[in-house]
């Protein structure tokens, strides 16, 4: 079994494929139903953001082991416009698309670790990890 798999995000259907992949890996790793829902939801938010704001990109799912603890890493990467003000997009309710603005701050709360790297005109790389306790 490979410990890395990914889905190219180009259409709305790829959002469905990405979260199904994530849920399957989460299940195989032994995450309970609540964590499976958290992980699936986080992937759905990140994949939809790629689709909406960058047009296309990639969701990668990795299995992690650190100090004997297993985890799942979600990488959402795109070569889109980048995010001008990270602090702003991490506020609840901030949206440039008429959405709820719940996505990014929500993913941060749903997961254990959360990191954004973004460069204007080059793209965005978001990494979120959940550890199996």
């Amino acid at each position, binding site marked *: 079994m490979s410990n890395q798999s990914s889905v190219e995000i180009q259409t*709305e*259907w790829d*959002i*469905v494929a990405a*979260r*199904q992949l994530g849920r399957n890996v989460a299940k195989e790793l032994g995450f309970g*139903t*609540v964590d*499976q*829902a*958290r992980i*699936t*939801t986080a992937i*759905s*938010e990140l994949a*939809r953001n790629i689709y909406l704001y960058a047009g296309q990109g990639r969701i990668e799912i990795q299995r992690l082991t650190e100090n004997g603890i297993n985890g799942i890493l979600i990488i959402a990467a795109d070569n889109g416009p980048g995010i001008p003000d990270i602090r702003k997009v991490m506020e*609840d309710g901030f949206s440039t698309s008429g*959405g*709820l603005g*719940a*996505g990014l*701050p*929500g993913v941060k*709360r*749903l997961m254990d670790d959360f990191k954004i790297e973004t460069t204007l005109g080059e793209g965005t790389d978001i990494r979120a990890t959940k550890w199996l306790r």
Partner: protein
Amino acid sequence: MNVRIPILKLRDTLIVSIQWELDDQTAIQFQEDLLTKLHETSARGVVIDLTSIDFIDSFIAKVLGDVISMSSLMGARVVITGIQPAVAITLIELGIRLEDVMTALDLENGLDKLQLELEA
């Protein structure tokens, strides 16, 4: 690929049971179909059963919230039933409060609640 969610009518109530994972198109189509059906039937109540749904993201939450507001504009009350524990937890962590939304444990309780509400 484009499956539509069936909407059943029972007396003055519409009943919707969402049985599979919602993609964006299906969710938007459902919104339209439900409002059209409300208009056609003049139903006064809607029960949306989410028992089979195992996650809700911000997009689906927005569609559901909009459906509830739009239905109320059209004079119908909506009850959401069967929200799984994992779904309730992730919705709150996402920061989504479905405020002023009538909920019930299951379809049967939802229909009872709606009936009481409509008689009141």
